């Protein structure tokens, strides 16, 4: 008796459902994505119970890393036609008697946080190898002889009148470094700060009151 052969199956698997699912996921991610902004230095923020979200637009952020280096960032505003970054750079160029070409201005408006003395800013914008870019991020000078950060803040306040100020400091930053920045901001009539933190829920209730 001949053996009963199982019917030859095609080695192909129907991939249509898989493709369906993948397309769905891909569309989802593409639509919901907001890219993680590039940052000059790794900053680990401290945690708090605050659940208030950082605003998307009209915010200038001052980054302070572990070593006290200071970086600055401002967004272009909700309306893309406002070009806040370009205007800010123009104002700063006037202040420090520098010139930037329209191409450089445009390039700058698409970049994110920066931290270097303003004379090196041109080199940072035009850098060829992105790896060299981080080397230029040495921090914005904040000492009293040449307080460039104060000018950045002042000009940013003039450029975008509604901008809020956020401070993103590393948990291990020295308090005095942060204090210096806060004093500087207060001199520029900023009295409300948004301290960027991680959410760490902490629940206490009536039962927790010690007797």
């Amino acid at each position, binding site marked *: 008796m001949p053996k009963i052969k199982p019917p030859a199956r095609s080695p192909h698997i129907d991939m249509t459902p898989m493709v369906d699912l993948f397309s769905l996921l*891909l569309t989802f991610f593409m639509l919901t994505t907001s890219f993680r902004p590039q940052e000059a230095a790794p900053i680990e923020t401290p945690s708090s119970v605050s659940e208030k979200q950082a605003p998307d637009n009209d915010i200038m952020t001052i980054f302070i890393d572990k070593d006290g280096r200071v970086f600055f960032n401002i967004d272009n505003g909700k309306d893309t036609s406002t070009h806040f970054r370009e205007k800010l750079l123009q104002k700063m160029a006037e202040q420090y008697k520098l010139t930037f070409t329209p191409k450089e201005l445009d390039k700058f408006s698409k970049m994110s946080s920066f931290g270097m003395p303003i004379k090196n800013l041109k080199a940072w914008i035009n850098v060829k190898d992105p790896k060299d870019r981080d080397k230029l991020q040495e921090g914005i000078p904040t000492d009293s002889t040449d307080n460039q950060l104060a000018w950045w803040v002042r000009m940013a306040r003039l450029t975008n009148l509604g901008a809020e100020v956020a401070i993103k400091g590393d948990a291990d930053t020295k308090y005095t470094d942060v204090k210096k920045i806060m004093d500087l901001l207060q001199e520029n009539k900023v*009295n409300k700060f948004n301290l960027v*933190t991680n959410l760490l829920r902490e629940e206490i209730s009536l039962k927790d*009151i010690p007797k």
Partner: protein
Amino acid sequence: MGEIIVEEKGKKGGKRKAKKHSTRIDMTPMVDLMCLLITFFMLTTAFSKPKVMVITMPEKDTPEDKNRPEIPKNRTLNILLTEGHKVYYYIGIADPKKPAELPQLIKTDFSKDGIRKFLLIKNKDLFTKIAEYRDNRVTGKTEVADTTADNAIKKMKKDDQKGPIVLIKADENAKYKDMVDIIDEMAICNIASYAVVDPSPTELEMLKNAPK
């Protein structure tokens, strides 16, 4: 990996049939690409938006002669932050003119039984009030909108006359985390009024002699 179509051979004279193509498309490259893209988007997406803690500082250049409200001595709670995430506190005012009456610093820490316990005892009335209000909202006893609730809590804090007035003072060895942590404790314990101020020279001196 296209399908192999085995053509029938040996038939002669039959009508020439058009080559039968399989209706299946090989989707493997497409799936490959999609996997890649999904991975890319998954890794670059920032899902959790950063949270912010809002702190409003008192204006710097307020003239001294403005008739400020007098702070009752026994309501003033001074918290001193220093290196190694240590917390010291004392009640009242450290007056440099009366060195004999300098208050004693009490050492504590950021743990649950540390400064929080003390703050809760001090702020018991207001904390109970706010916590009860929140509980009533959760259980559905009072139904109000979020903004109304926020305003109600704000009003409770404003009307509070018993809770401590906390002055947060960090010395140069404190870390940024310490400041955020202590302000966070204020939020957790529903402290109505607190401010971040500079420590006085007397207080720095007290810190030096504080229990280690």
